[in-house]
């Protein structure tokens, strides 16, 4: 299996197949960020694909100074910030991030109560995250899901470390208030999952 460096060099020579192999390696991570950021599955796909198109167009500027994923993540963050400014997320209000699979489908084995419970939980988490401001949401995702340091996030978002720390703290406080972890809520989710 070819390593990233070889695939990048081939992709820089306009080999689309090589670039698609790179995309297959990292598409899930980029899509994960986009789906938490966008709240909407269609927006998440559009945004993640746009990230790949931008990466393809800018690939000639990649100088192997950092890992490919670090470079790609920077493009992702910029795309997120640009979309925040341009009002890309026009389908606000639709929470279709969770697509419950029909039980009679070929993947019905995945529709166990535990999976459904997780999906319902995910829906409530995404809804809670969507209520954060865009900068709080991005700072939280980068800190919590990507494990970036406050300095790295501040550098990527072009703001101070203190702003990032405060944003993450406020995001967690809001999430804590929104995602009630009381036993009755958990029970309600479990019973709802069993109904499916």
């Amino acid at each position: 299996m070819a390593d990233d460096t070889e695939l990048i060099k081939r992709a820089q020579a306009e080999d689309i197949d090589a670039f698609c192999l790179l995309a297959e390696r990292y598409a899930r991570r980029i899509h994960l960020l986009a789906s938490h950021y966008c709240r909407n599955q269609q927006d998440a796909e559009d945004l993640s694909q746009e990230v790949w198109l931008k990466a393809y167009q800018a690939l000639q500027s990649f100088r192997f100074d950092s890992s490919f994923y670090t470079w790609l993540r920077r493009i992702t963050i910029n795309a997120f910030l640009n979309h925040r400014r341009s009002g890309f997320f026009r389908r606000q209000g639709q929470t279709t991030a969770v697509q419950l699979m029909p039980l009679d489908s070929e993947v019905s084995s995945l529709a166990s109560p535990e999976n459904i419970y997780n999906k319902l939980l995910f829906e409530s988490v995404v809804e809670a995250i969507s209520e954060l401001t865009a900068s709080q949401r991005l700072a939280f995702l980068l800190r919590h899901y990507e494990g970036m340091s406050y300095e790295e996030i501040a550098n990527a978002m072009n703001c101070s470390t203190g702003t990032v720390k405060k944003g993450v703290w406020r995001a967690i406080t809001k999430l804590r208030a929104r995602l009630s972890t009381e036993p009755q809520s958990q029970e309600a989710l479990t019973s709802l999952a069993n109904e499916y």
Partner: protein
Amino acid sequence: MHNCREVRERLTELILDGQPDRELVAELNKCAECSAEFDAVNATLRTTTRVRETAIPAESYWPAYHARLRDKLSHVQVRRRKENTGASFAPLRLCVNILFRPVPVPLAAGLVVLALLGLLAFRGTRKPAAPQSVVVHVPVEIPVVQEKLVTQVVYRNRYLPSRTSKRTGADSRVENTFAKSQMPRPDDVPTLTGFKPAADVKLTVIKGGSPNEK
């Protein structure tokens, strides 16, 4: 001194970093509220971590996703190639388009007439360009006429009476009569009527002349 707000702000870092902070743990043990807050935040972050993988669509989703991406990439590649080839011949193509564009004869004639009229109007309103002035510094000697105020003193003839008074006899009487006739009368005021000053005045100062001369 225990500060609940400060401890709660540091809880996030304690949970996210996953590194034990003995000082903070000791503070949590002191305060039941802070300890409860720690548990709540920890549970929230555990929940978000738990559902993290749920956000990733099922494997059946990805082939179609990559097919769509490949399609978009192909379009980008084609467009980029077109731009690259188009950019190299762009000026030539522009000239060809302009020169060989089919235009109806009346329209072309009208355009030519309009162009000529415009050219004539432009020439009519155009003023001849003034020669550009060049500043050259040339030293020139200018003669300065210095005028002097010259006072010309005119003396009239005088006869000294002391001389004539010393003479005696008939001569002296005749001379006295003549002298008296020549002497100015009190009402005879000297005038400068008829005096014409010379254009050039030559002054000669004689040193050691009369003692009364100034």
